[in-house]
């Protein structure tokens, strides 16, 4: 070695010592630093799961339904076919033709009232309360109830109450005739000051079909039975009431019962919102969020793994491509979906997606361009 050294480098002992100490200290510290990525990964997954659980509508609905589920808990879901609408009042009732229903096996009225802690009023003769059975159907959002009573002569009283969001009877679409098109007597009575109760009585040999749900034991399904019956129809306090009866009944007594029942029955205060279809749909959404999160983590993890020993330039290039093709679609969809759920609006999700998609893509593009052109 040359005998000459630059003046500044003649005595570097102090700096050598500093290097020595720093290296010794940091070698141990960096061992611990290896735990940081593991810790960060675990925390990320934990936070993601937490967010999923918090924002998951399925959970929200389950929680919501949990307090209201008493009605459906009484029943057992089974198969079924058909919908029940009022043919006589189809101008009011036509919307019920277009629903897909979930059907529930009937239970006795006693069981139903006991389980739901409600009382059912006494029935006019010749019907007996203890013959009653209750069938529930759900249109995916709301539960409807049907109370059916038979007497030994084959006559029946059928009370159907279905939740509906608007007063479909208030508009007076129905003709003002005192008879229906078959000549049967149609009367309008006031239930309250602003609510009409329609009463169609079978006064001729022909008439509109009256249908109701019927449990078929042999197939264990709910079907629709069509027959003829006298019919009451109205909308009150959020429910469509369709009440049919056959047999020799005192009309006045029956009308009074019907009015009293509609105005005061305790079932109308039971929670009828059971969003089965929503729960099902959001549960699939939850699975989608989980899958997208897993794919995202997998994509990021694999990229990090395969580029861990790569050159800096390669890393930039790889992350640019991965950001554009993997992270951008997944992350923007994920965030938008969660935002949409949070806002409860699908358009919010689409709007967010339209913002995030180009934004993340641009970030990926910038990373790629830096990787391509920057000198490393």
């Amino acid at each position, binding site marked *: *070695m*040359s*005998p*000459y*050294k*630059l*003046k*500044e*480098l003649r005595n*570097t002992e102090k*700096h*050598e010592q*500093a*290097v*020595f100490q*720093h*290296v*010794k200290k*940091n*070698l141990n510290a*960096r061992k611990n630093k290896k735990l940081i990525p593991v810790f960060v990964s675990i925390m990320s997954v934990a936070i993601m799961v937490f967010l999923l659980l918090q924002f998951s509508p399925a959970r929200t609905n389950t929680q919501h339904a949990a307090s209201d589920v008493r009605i459906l808990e009484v029943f057992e879901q089974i198969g079924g076919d058909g919908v029940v609408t009022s043919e006589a009042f189809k101008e009011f009732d036509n919307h019920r033709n277009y629903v897909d229903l979930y059907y529930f096996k009937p239970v006795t009225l006693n069981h139903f009232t006991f389980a739901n802690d409600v009382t059912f009023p006494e029935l006019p003769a010749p019907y007996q309360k203890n013959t009653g059975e209750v069938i529930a159907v759900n249109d995916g959002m709301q539960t409807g109830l049907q109370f059916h009573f038979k007497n030994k002569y084959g006559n029946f009283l059928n009370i159907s109450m279905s939740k509906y969001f608007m007063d479909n009877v208030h508009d007076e679409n129905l003709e003002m005739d005192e008879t229906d098109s078959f000549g049967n007597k149609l009367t309008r009575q006031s239930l309250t000051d602003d609510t009409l109760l329609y009463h169609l009585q079978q006064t001729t040999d022909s008439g509109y079909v009256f249908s109701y749900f019927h449990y078929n034991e042999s197939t264990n399904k709910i079907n629709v039975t069509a027959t003829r019956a006298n019919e009451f129809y109205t909308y009150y306090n959020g429910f469509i009431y369709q009440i049919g009866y056959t047999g020799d009944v005192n009309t006045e007594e029956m009308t009074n019962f019907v009015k009293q029942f509609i105005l005061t029955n305790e079932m109308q205060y039971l929670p009828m919102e059971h969003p089965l279809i929503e729960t099902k749909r959001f549960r699939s959404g939850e699975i989608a969020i989980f899958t997208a999160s897993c794919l995202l983590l997998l994509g990021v993890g694999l990229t990090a793994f395969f580029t861990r020993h790569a050159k800096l330039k390669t890393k930039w290039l790889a992350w640019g491509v991965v950001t554009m093709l993997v992270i951008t679609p997944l992350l923007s969809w994920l965030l938008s979906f969660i935002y949409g759920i949070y806002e409860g609006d699908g358009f919010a999700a689409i709007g967010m997606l339209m913002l995030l998609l180009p934004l993340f893509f641009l970030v990926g593009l910038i990373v790629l361009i830096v990787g391509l052109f920057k*000198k490393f």
Partner: protein
Amino acid sequence: MDEEIIDELMKKHNAILLRIAYYYTKNLHTAEDIVQDVFIKYFQKKRSLQGDAVEKYLMKMTVNKAKDHLKSWHYQKLRFQEKWFAGKKVMPVDQLVLQDEEDMISAAIFSLPVKQREVIAYYYLEGFNTKQVAQLLNIPDSTVKSRLVKGRNELKQKLEMVEWEVLKNEPL
């Protein structure tokens, strides 16, 4: 890696790595940082090199790291600040007189462009032959020689006006 081996390696190579880093950075503290990083990376990679290979490997790492520093945004920013924002140092004539001859040599070497400075430093200050310098810098032997010639000429120009008193007999 054993603590003892780590200690031994550092004791053996610390000084030369510091000098190499300094030839590029002109700052001992920066050189210190670079050498620290080099050692830590080397020990973490747990390479089992033996003999001369260790020194060559460490020196190459130091050269690369030092060059990275010169290209870094941080260094460029410092240079920019020095160039544009630092007030011009007005050095009184009597202080210039006080500058010793060794400082003048340092200043002349560090005023060379990196390409010439590094070969001059390795060849004259570290005593490497041209082949070793070529290997370390990953350039052809002939390039080392041409850079040496160029660097020498530049140094000559810078230092020929100096009337050497103390160092006139030093075999440089």
